[in-house]
């Protein structure tokens, strides 16, 4: 079983994000970057599949050269090798160009399963996996909160508004996992040491034979304005000295709720 896991490096989600008023993009300079926590679940899901069925996990990430660190982190968790898709011509890629570049880099690889997060924590469009599936002509099993693989098929419990659906597709397939699917392992020291010697291949636009239809040149959309949203005003804040519950009940009565 060969598993590809797509991971993205993102600005530390615990630090409030900022948009650059000039470029209208997320400020990435001087900000700590991490492997997207959502994608850690994708890596974990991939590792669990191969631990059960045998095989190898390859991590793939598109980004600037420093996205190598995100790949190393996934390798330290236990994945076997990495592919870093990086090229100045890929800068400012939107979701569709990202999917196209990843599809380009995947060509020629043998794989049974491609695992992604449901949505990136910084962009949260959740578009790349479905676009990738479309470009590769593969079925997409999305929003998995459970994944089982066997008999040339993958089965997931797919999150719904009021429960889940059991969904099946033949391999190869693309799967997106939700945060609830597993507890992502923490890399052990040994894993971190081993990760340093694992192979990470770098590929650029030329290697993939992709034309100039990438990055900035292929944008399908453009941000034209950023402004602050109208904020909600704070109301009254009272300390509970025994009358707090009564105060809430009075208010509910005022609102004609009771």
């Amino acid at each position: 079983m060969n598993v590809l896991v797509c991971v993205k490096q993102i600005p530390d989600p615990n630090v409030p994000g900022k948009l650059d008023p000039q470029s209208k993009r997320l400020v990435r300079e001087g900000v700590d970057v991490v492997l997207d926590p959502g994608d850690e679940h994708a890596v974990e899901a991939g590792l669990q599949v191969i631990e059960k069925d045998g095989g190898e996990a390859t991590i793939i990430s598109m980004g600037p050269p420093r996205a190598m660190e995100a790949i190393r982190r996934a390798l330290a968790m236990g994945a076997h090798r990495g592919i870093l898709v990086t090229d100045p011509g890929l800068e400012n890629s939107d979701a569709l160009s990202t999917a196209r570049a990843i599809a380009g880099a995947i060509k020629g690889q043998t794989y049974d399963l491609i695992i992604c997060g449901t949505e990136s924590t910084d962009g949260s469009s959740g578009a790349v996996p479905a676009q990738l599936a479309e470009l590769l002509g593969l079925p997409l099993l999305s929003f998995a909160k459970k994944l089982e693989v066997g008999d040339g098929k993958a089965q997931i419990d797919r999150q719904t508004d009021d429960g889940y659906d059991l969904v099946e597709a033949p391999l190869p397939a693309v799967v997106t996992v939700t945060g609830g699917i597993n507890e992502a392992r923490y890399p052990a020291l040994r894993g971190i040491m081993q990760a340093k010697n694992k192979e990470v291949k770098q590929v650029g636009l030329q290697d993939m034979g992709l034309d100039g239809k990438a990055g900035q040149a292929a944008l399908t959309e453009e941000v034209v304005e950023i402004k602050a949203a109208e904020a909600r005003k704070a109301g009254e804040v009272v300390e509970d000295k025994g009358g707090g519950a009564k105060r809430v009940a009075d208010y509910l009565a005022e609102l004609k709720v009771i």
Partner: protein
Amino acid sequence: MAGIWVFAETVDGTPKPVVLELLTKARSLGEVTAVALGPSASKAIQTLGEYGAKKVYVHEDPAFRDVLATPAVDLLARLIEKDQPDLVLFGMTYDGRDVASRLSARLWTALIANASDVVNKDGGWAIVTPVFGGTVLVTTVPLAKAPTLVLIRPKAVAAEPASPASAPQVETLTDQVDTGTRAARVLRREKEKASGPKLEDAAIIVSGGRGLGAPENFKMLDELAAELGAAVGASRAVVDAGWKPYSFQIGQTGKTVKPSVYIAIGISGAMQHTVGMKGAKTIIAINKDPEAPIFKLADLGIVGDVHTIVPQLIQEVRSRKGK
């Protein structure tokens, strides 16, 4: 006039609530066509007309219900090529997201996710997307060829019937749906049991966070909710801890709700939570930390311990209801 399409998801012939919101928005932008797919979809035609659809494409093949995304993408791609709409609106639902994303790759066209609004701008479209927990609004314009695909968050637009309602022109499609061998098929559907109103529809929501201290303390919220006829919601911290299933989660990666009253109990009010509930008409918060960010948007905030206040509140409500 601009052709605005709405991907009209139905469940057993009833349009999902977000579809009525999409139609309300769509009819302010141009001439509306709805595409309703799956068994019993034709039952939705009247409602779709009431909310502004002038034309409805219907295809009732069960494959649209039982196979994820691809049959809908095939059909939409074909219809779009024929009619060349300017804009296609989808609800930001599980299926809406899969279909719109795949379709964008098929057509190589702009896809804008997480949108809250679409407006006319210089003869084109400008799409508004809230970011950073809704504190900042980003406006995006498409650069690719039409149609632009937009995923709109549920509850971003208030649904209102059109007046007058139209009796839409209906085109029923019956051509064979070829799902191929590489399909993702739904084998079984499981519903988690829930009592009381659904979160999405509830007028009152009682929502709990990590401040409740332990999963069993959610019983207090169930009791309070039962007294108020409210639905129970939760923060992600609570869902991640396994105290409540994901279907309870409110926020950026959970549900967006818009009740008339939202009672946040032991919830700090992180941006990723508030983005999902700050559309509530009235917000009441109970938290022991006077600095908790939730107080910045609460209409009434009580600084105190949930373990004393909530049981008292249940008693208060009961006695006022004459029990």
